[in-house]
């Protein structure tokens, strides 16, 4: 079975919702979602990833086609061989680009120090979510970015809030992880055993 969804021109998070509905509607087969922007592409891909479904993305004429396989193909060969350290079912929400309240200089130092230590401490968190000025860490703070890249290698999901990147006009500077929306943030936090807010 193959279902095609034309989600071009639909506002976020509509493409994700439509794709999810379609996936729930079939037992086995392909869902192909057509979107016209990179944020929607990432969000739909992330949906497939979070459902542990195998998917592929192709681009043509500025549009993106995300093809998600459900059923017999659900587990890709890479998933089976990848051996990663265990992740804690822990989500960290980073709401600003410093740690704690007080002098900015110290806060900047502390946040670097925090992510260094985090990247050295097992078990690693399942996801780290960056919102508000926290998105400056995944775009402009080269030292924090290095630590975050290390965490992604261990399987931690790094996600920056799309509308925040947009607000600070730094969407093009994203250096690590993907872009997400409030629905996905809520989902991750609600499913986590523990959420830490910085």
């Amino acid at each position, binding site marked *: 079975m193959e279902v095609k969804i034309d989600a071009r021109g639909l506002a976020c998070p509509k493409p994700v919702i439509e794709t999810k509905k379609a996936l729930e509607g079939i037992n086995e087969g392909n869902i192909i979602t057509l979107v016209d922007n990179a944020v929607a592409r990432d969000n739909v891909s992330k949906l497939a990833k979070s459902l542990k479904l195998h998917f592929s993305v192709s681009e043509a004429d500025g549009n993106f086609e995300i093809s998600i396989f459900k059923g017999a193909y659900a587990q890709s060969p890479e998933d089976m061989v990848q051996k990663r350290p265990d992740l804690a079912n822990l989500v960290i929400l980073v709401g600003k680009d410093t740690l704690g309240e007080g002098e900015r*200089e*110290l806060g900047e*130092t502390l946040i*670097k*120090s925090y992510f*260094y230590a985090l990247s050295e401490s097992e078990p690693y968190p399942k996801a780290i979510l960056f919102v508000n000025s926290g998105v400056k860490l995944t775009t402009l703070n080269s*030292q924090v970015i290095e630590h975050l890249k290390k965490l992604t290698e261990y399987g931690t999901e790094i996600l920056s809030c799309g509308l925040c990147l947009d607000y600070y006009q730094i969407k093009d500077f994203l250096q690590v992880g993907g872009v997400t929306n409030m629905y996905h943030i809520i989902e991750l936090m609600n499913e986590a055993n523990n959420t830490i807010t910085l």
Partner: protein
Amino acid sequence: MERNYMIITFSSTHQAIHFERLLLGRFAIEMIPTPRDITASCGLSLKFEKEDLSSILDALKAEDLSGKQLYEYIEEKQIRKMITIGWEDAYATKA
């Protein structure tokens, strides 16, 4: 796989931030929480690769190095060795 790197510890946070400012952009340094096996220092340290030691020593020549301590870490197969290095020795070996 052996990994060598250097750590400088400080007796105050302000000193640590001052040194970071001095070296940042010129060298690949990292501000990190002081490793747990070093106790006598403030919570912040600078970390850099051993190969940068010589040029960093040059950059620090004019600085007051009292209260700051240099360490070398050698990591090999989960085993970590720490060596305390005196500044005078460091400059002497370099020359």
